[in-house]
């Protein structure tokens, strides 16, 4: 079974490819949806095409599936329309799958399930990464606010942090919000740093 993954995100495509390899599929190709990707895909004559639901290139792909003379059999989204739970899970995960007509659903279902799991895992990694990034930038803001307090009020680092935390608690805000406000005020007052 030849599986083509069309994805703007090289990382997600690799995560999916790796999973499929582990599951024993060995005819897997990754095609980024750029330039003449449709002609490349046509030559590959895939049995299953997996694509990110959020990709703007889906209309281009579907048009090819509609008009292509090179593809012997029609390709439809989701092989088993009666399996609503599967379709729901795929759409929630952001997976769209196109499958050639005649491929038995028992053969396709594991591929689709795997794609859903990998897409979900990737989304989780991505959101953890975003969280880590924002935690890092929060830290920088707090550090800067601390050093303003340390300079202006001759406090130790510990006391500067305690002051920020108390202010945040009293105002019902996050420490990073108070720190940001302090930096802005300091900038406006020409406090430098």
């Amino acid at each position, binding site marked *: 079974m030849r599986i083509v993954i069309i994805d703007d995100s090289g990382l997600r495509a690799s995560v999916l490819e790796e999973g499929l390899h582990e599951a024993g599929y060995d005819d897997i190709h990754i095609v980024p949806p750029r330039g003449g990707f449709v002609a490349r895909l046509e030559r590959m004559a895939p049995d299953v095409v997996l694509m990110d639901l959020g990709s703007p290139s889906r209309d281009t792909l579907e048009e090819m599936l509609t008009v292509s003379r090179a593809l012997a059999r029609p390709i439809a989204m989701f092989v088993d329309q009666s399996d609503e739970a599967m379709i729901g899970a795929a759409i929630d995960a952001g997976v*769209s799958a196109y499958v050639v007509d005649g491929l038995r659903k028992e053969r396709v279902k594991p591929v689709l399930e795997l794609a859903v799991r990998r897409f979900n895992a990737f989304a989780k990694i991505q959101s953890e990464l975003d969280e880590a990034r924002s935690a890092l930038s929060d830290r920088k803001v707090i550090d800067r606010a601390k050093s303003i307090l340390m300079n202006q009020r001759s406090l130790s680092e510990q006391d500067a942090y305690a002051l920020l935390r108390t202010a945040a608690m009293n105002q019902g805000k996050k420490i990073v919000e108070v720190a940001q406000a302090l930096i802005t005020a300091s900038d406006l007052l020409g406090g430098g740093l």
Partner: protein
Amino acid sequence: MTIGLRIAFLPLTDAAVLVAARERGFAEEEGIALDLVRTTSWATLRDRLVYGQVQGAHMLAPLAVAVTLGLSQQPAPLAAPYKLNVNGNMLVMACDFAKALEPVIANRLADPLGTAHDFAAAIGLWRRKPVIGVVHRFSGHAIMLRYWLASAGVDPDRDVVLRVLPPSLTVEAMHAGEIDGFIAGEPWGSAAVEAGLAEAVAIGERIWRRGVEKVLAFRESWLEENPQAVDRLLRALVRAAAWCDDPAHRDDLANLLARPDYVDQPAYLIERALSGGIVARAGEPPIVSPDFMLFGREATPFPWRSQALWIYSQLVLWGMVDHDPATATRAGAVFRPDIFRRALADSNVPMPGASMKLEGAVASPLAVGSRRGELTLGPDSFFDKRVFDPERIEEFLAGFAPLR
């Protein structure tokens, strides 16, 4: 009790009525918590609607007909009780290609028939078949482009290459030389003109003066089961549409749409379609077309069944569906004037007395029979002066010479 509704949309100027309904309180006043889901392809918008991730969608009118007839992936009966706009499209072509056309663009746009013939000649001068981007096979844009090209004997399936790509990728594709021009909803044509990549060749409003564009589509079963939610939303949209049409709100609306969570393009580009002041070539003064895009006036939202049937006739004409009376009936039934009437029964919105009309028969503003208030329909003629009688589809189709 507040009703939560999720509606999918694509980043286009003609999502305006939905955006205004959410952002300017019209939905809230009707007890609707409107959640707008930004989507980047028509395929994904269709899937979100068909598989129930959203209740409604800002949909290409021909796509709603096509999904119902089973022509676009999973068949599902859809129902469109409301038109979100008419007009608003523009065909732009690379400046090099446009050199073979009438150089004074105001004249070019005013005479679509002459321009179609110039375009046919320009194809011969081009170094290869021109590649024209369309946003979807089942779009008002593609249908109008086909209609316009065919009038000059150009076979859109043989003499040019129609390439499907979503509106948000059109400018990039022009830049990369993957397409020689495209037809799309605003602000994408203006964005290509502004970038110096293209100039206007035709505007939708001059091909069909009241061209059906986006509808609000629901799954038919959901529509039947949720009359209260549908009626409240339609009442909110009618008021939002009147607000959008009012020139006093143009700046506010353009700025709203410009936001990253909506169209994410500069407000001054979006404002062009709203005001009808179209810059057809970079650096030139705007050409004013007051009817470039309509939201509320002239009962624009009213879903005339005859318009769904006109769309159907075009799908038949291009061999996308085989004609038979039962299929025609199903296509016509996608537009739901009955629901529109029910929702706005107690409002002061002028309501057409009929559900079908001759399309293309109104040459100048015409007062028509209305159950309430005064209703004047604007000119709705086609550039080739054809008239579509929804009762005589076969006769209408027979009037087109076979191209092949």
